[in-house]
């Protein structure tokens, strides 16, 4: 029985987004969509979070930060790339300072493309992420039993 799927706490990091996706991420938690129906809470602290929502592409300046936040999250954890820039770099793909999507820095579990990504799609992505979370949680429990 995994409880991870019933209480996905998220942390949101704005890589180099134009703020379009960020506004949508926050809108997901607002009354209209009410992410808390599914237990989604925005924590603002990687040590409390289960799901890492990244918006915008990764560049030289922020790649360290993205990695650090990911490292400081406690297992089991899932990364959702929110918006096309986070997925692949989007229209900024060929900029001189852009490295690419979030997967250039950390392993990404769910890709949610869009410009900007819609709240419905984000909820879908989180639900997909939650399934991964359950898998990882079960794996962790098994590893703990084995050890």
């Amino acid at each position, binding site marked *: 029985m995994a409880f991870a799927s019933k209480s996905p706490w998220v942390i949101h990091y704005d890589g180099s987004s134009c703020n379009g996706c960020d506004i949508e991420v926050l809108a997901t938690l607002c009354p209209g969509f009410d992410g*808390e129906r599914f237990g989604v809470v925005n924590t603002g602290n990687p040590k409390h979070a289960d799901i890492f929502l990244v918006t915008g592409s990764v560049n030289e300046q922020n790649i360290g930060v993205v990695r650090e936040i990911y490292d400081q999250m406690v297992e089991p954890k899932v990364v959702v790339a929110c918006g096309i820039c986070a997925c692949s770099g989007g229209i900024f793909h060929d900029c001189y300072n852009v490295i690419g999507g979030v997967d250039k820095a950390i392993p990404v579990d769910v890709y949610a493309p869009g410009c900007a990504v819609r709240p419905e799609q984000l909820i879908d992505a989180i639900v997909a992420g939650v399934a991964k979370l359950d898998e990882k949680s079960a794996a962790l429990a098994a590893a703990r039993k084995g050890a």
Partner: protein
Amino acid sequence: MSLISTLIGTLLFALIAPAVGCLLAGLDRIVSARMQGRVGPPLLQPYYDVRKLFEKERASVNSVERVYVATALLFALLAGGIFFSGGNLLLCVFVITLSSLFFIMAAYSTRSPYAEVGAARETLQVMAYEPMVLLLAVGFYLAAGTFDVGDVLALDAPVITTIWLVFLGLLFILTIKLRKSPFDLSMSHHAHQEIVRGMTTEMSGPTLGLVEIMHWCENVLFLGWIGMFFVWGNPLSIILAVAVVLAVYFLEIWIDNNFARVKWQLMLKSAWAVALAAGGVNIAFLAFL
């Protein structure tokens, strides 16, 4: 005899209070959501959260943080046990303060700048509400003639009739004790007005789960203090007390959702002013009349 009854009370409190506190927390989140025009999470959401936290990996910044938190939880349970087994109110106050101290030490021990800010603010919060809490005990003693909470069952009239001013003072600092906005300076349930996560910044997984459980138990205890004002010899008064407790809890949720966090200066000054006015006047009346 009372030593044994206290220990039994603590055991029972350790079993019942988390369940009650969890439901109250769930209620809080639903009511808050409705006040914001949302549907809100299921009633058992706090339970799911804590279960999840216990499933997470064990990681911490040092070896002692969890020990301190566990000790804080232990003393919170003991304080609840003392109170609900009808023990000494003053001892209950002291033990819950000891619990806060261990929690403060847990936050300081992490040496995270954010947690330290939270811990310093928590220390300040304790200083802000402590006078009123002590005056609560004194007022109760003057009204009931004893510090033993169990003796309210032998009273002819509830203590609220003589110490209603103290009750109002307690209501004011209850907002601090329940960690509700505008006085949730040290750790808030609302991410939007918190510096990272205040005292719990470095606490993750099971440690955070223990903190949540402690918070539930504390809430039950503090609401018990509220209920104590309305209980007397009549057994039906318990129902009245529960009704008042629920009303007060609703009031606290309403306050939580309608006020933004204040600065510490305002919290300290207003809490002390209220303690001096409400507690001081009421006690002076009881002592001299």
